[in-house]
């Protein structure tokens, strides 16, 4: 990338950083009604969100599309392995749709209902959503998926689903695992300086995912230590494969927490449930991303951090919309987004 492009991107990134809604601000917004929330969010982000309280899926789509448009601005100047890495990273949004589709079809949910749960990704969409929805049975849909860009992920997921007693939760986990392994592999093709900086923020993200899945596999599903370890991405920052192998052999959640390296042991020492751990770990990985974003780290790692933070912002706002739409109490929504911990 030329010096000019790099300077241009740094400037664009700085403007985007100023438009991120920080978590504390988001939490204070929960107490207001949706109109006021989106008035404030529009003011902070500079995006003119059009709220239609009768159809909130439109605002959810707007949130995702605006984020994808901003990502596009940041990544289009890249070429080669960086470009491929970023385009793959933002496939995460489509993976959410993929999981909704597979879950929906296997659970025999009505097409109209599945469609409601999908997010319109506009020009970023690779999946032939309409055709997939029109399939008559889940296996027909899987066969169709096996000729898309997600063929590899889908094949793995199908195998696990069929061999592990048709468990949709494991199917989701396999899809996530395949995605993160591929993302990690693509990161290894970046130039060494970028890869080193990226390892910090990506490692923290993978630590979070690996630890939570390890706890679920071992203590919710009762899988063996070896199989639990195998199903992890096993390439983290503090939790590398040796650490994960050691943790997989533990017999209780408490033992695992006690054996965790710092800062995770300190962070999780007062936490009791896996869902609380999920929240704490997520905030930790986002704070690492935030530190990277505001540091002199490489442009690639800062943009990746921005993508993580923006994705979290979209997710939090979607959770608030859902909560408000269902008429939940503000405290319940705060709990759902983890603000009550």
């Amino acid at each position, binding site marked *: 990338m030329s010096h000019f492009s790099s300077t241009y991107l740094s400037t664009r990134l700085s403007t985007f950083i100023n438009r991120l809604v920080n978590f504390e601000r988001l939490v204070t917004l929960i107490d207001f009604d949706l109109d006021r929330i989106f008035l404030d969010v529009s003011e902070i982000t500079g995006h003119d969100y059009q709220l239609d309280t009768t159809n909130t899926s439109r605002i959810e789509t707007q949130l995702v599309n605006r984020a994808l448009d901003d990502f596009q601005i940041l990544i289009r100047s890249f070429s080669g392995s960086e470009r491929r890495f970023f385009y793959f990273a933002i496939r995460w949004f489509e993976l959410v749709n993929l999981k909704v589709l597979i879950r929906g079809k296997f659970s025999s949910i009505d097409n109209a209902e599945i469609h409601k749960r999908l997010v319109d990704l506009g020009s970023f969409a690779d999946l032939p959503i309409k055709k997939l929805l029109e399939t*008559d049975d889940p296996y027909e849909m899987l*066969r169709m998926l096996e000729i898309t860009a997600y063929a590899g992920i889908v094949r793995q997921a199908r195998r696990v689903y069929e061999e*592990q007693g048709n468990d949709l939760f494991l199917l989701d986990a396999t899809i996530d695992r395949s995605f993160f*392994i591929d993302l990690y592999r693509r990161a290894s093709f970046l130039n060494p300086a970028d890869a080193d900086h990226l390892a910090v923020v990506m490692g923290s993200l993978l630590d979070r995912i690996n630890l939570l899945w390890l706890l679920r596999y071992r203590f919710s599903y009762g899988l*063996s230590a070896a199989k639990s370890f*195998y199903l992890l991405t096993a390439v983290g920052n503090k939790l590398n494969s040796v650490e994960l*192998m050691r943790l997989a052999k533990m017999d209780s959640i408490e033992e695992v927490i006690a054996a965790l390296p710092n800062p995770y042991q300190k962070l999780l020492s007062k936490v009791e449930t896996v869902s609380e751990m999920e929240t704490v770990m997520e905030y930790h990985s986002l704070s690492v991303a935030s530190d990277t974003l505001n540091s002199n780290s490489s442009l690639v790692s800062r943009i990746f951090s921005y993508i993580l933070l923006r994705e979290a912002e979209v997710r939090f706002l979607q959770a608030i919309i859902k909560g408000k739409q269902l008429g939940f109490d503000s405290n319940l929504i705060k709990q759902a987004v983890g603000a009550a911990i």
Partner: protein
Amino acid sequence: MWSTPIPMKKVSLYMVDADAQQSAMTLAQMSVIHPLENQDNNQLLENYPAAPFFSVYHRLNLRFGKIASFSKQGFEHSVVSTDIVTLQQLQKLDEQLKRLWAQVSDIEEQLRRQNEALHVIRQLSDSLQKFTALDLDLSRLRRQGNFLRIFVGTVPLGNFSQLKRALSLTHYMIKSFYSGEGIQHVVVFGSSQQHEDVQALLKSADFRALKIPDEFSGSPSELQANMQQQQARVVETIGELKQKQTDLLLENQPVLSEVHEVLISARPYASLATVLQGRGGLVSLRGWVPAHSDQAIKRQLEKDLEFPFHVEFTAPEIDEFDDVPSLLKKSWLLKPFQNLVTNFGIPGYKEVDPSGLFALSYILMFGMMFGDIGHGGVILLGSLFLYKRFPPFSIVGALAGLSSIFFGFIYGSIFGYEEIVHALWMSPMHDPVKLLLVAVVWGASFLLIANLLAIRNFLATGLYQQAFYSGKGMAGFFFYLAALYAGYQVFTNQPFGWLESLFLMAPMMVILHFQWRQSSAGLFERVLVVFIEGLEHIISNVSGTLSFLRVAAFSLNHIALAAAVFSIAAMMDVVGHWLTVVLGNIFIIVLEGAIVAIQCLRLEYYEGFSRFFGGKGKAFEPLKIEF
């Protein structure tokens, strides 16, 4: 020379719902109505009576499409039944196709599994080949001991290292003995105590075990034969499944054929799902029809509909022009040029269809730029030769060839030779300046005609202010005329007095004033916009005119290329000379011919169409029976 789209009328048909489907069939057979969706959210007619029908039709159509893609039989219907298709009939067929698709899909799933099994057998067979050189009794691998378990098989390359680490947690070892095609051929061994955990782990890692049959007790080569049998069995199963699928489809061919016919008949009514609105047994259908067909429509409906109906035809109001579809007048000769015009955009309802003008100017410019009797003749013959395969392309080619021949006589050029035929006017090389002046005059005339057409289009669509005051309107026309006159005076060293200056400035002031009134920005931005727009108008007129210099430039280029070919040929012996002349001429016809064709198109699109042609019309898409 030019025409406008065929006049339209808006039709509003009110009928009882029992006649709705028949009316759709009647109108589809006549191919005269462009259905119009109600955009006023008519509260009185709140129901969409064709919506349930469309829903079943859509499902049936999808299923038919899926099944038909597996069928080797065609579905040809040249005549369609005019019988009305009922919702119950559609539902019944949909149920039949649902069951049929479930069977086809099931066979497809089995085929997928068999193909995967075949793939695995081939991989394992490869794996086994690595053992054939060893004198090893493989039945020992089947006889698992009390203390030791051994698994032989394959694992995907990407899963190997993670599996290796995971196995170390179970005190098992994994050893790869061969690697290829994205898989590792491995042996896994360890203590019998944890073999269940290990088996579950291996499954997750997509480990495919080499299964040794119970009756087997021999060397690797014997097992290889056994695997070949397995492979043959799977291949046979695949063949059987394919045959089963073919038989199933053949057996159901009559049903599929019936569905195909029903879908054709049901389509007109189904496609009106968002158009037909009704309430309490009353249904309304709106659309646009060619104005001249109103009485024929009324007569046909009177003949076909069972119950009384009311139909009214109204001419479109000026504010509806944007919604009226454009049906262009058909002409066999102009069809290929119409295609090129609609490639740029569809003429608006009241806009001029420039196909005729486009055809004439395109053909003339091509001839001017590529004037050669011989080259034109080759293009003409080539186009006639290809007529059956590419009719539209051939018509354009033949006319361009004729034009080239005509200008060939004007320039006195045949296959680049300028001495054989006497020029009716002159060769471009003899007076290039004169030719350049002719090109400028041609360009100026072209732009003036484009300007007049723009004025005509503005007036026809009620945009009177634009017609009089804008840069594309009369003010722009007079400014351009004055500018041409000014240019002529300057180049001929004649005086350019205050009166001429006034004629130049006055229309420009009108254009700027119009821009000023159109802009609603702040003072500074308004001044800036008006200044830039004015400047842009002057520059576009100058550049547009000069753009036509390429007409002369390419005719000179044509001669220059021929001269280059002859110069090279002159350096050769007799055979080389004629070979160079022939190849050189082919090169000129193919390469320069293509460039000239593209340049003509560019002049038409960018210098012509962009000045008067909006191209934002909607194509007339009638409801019709589609086979």
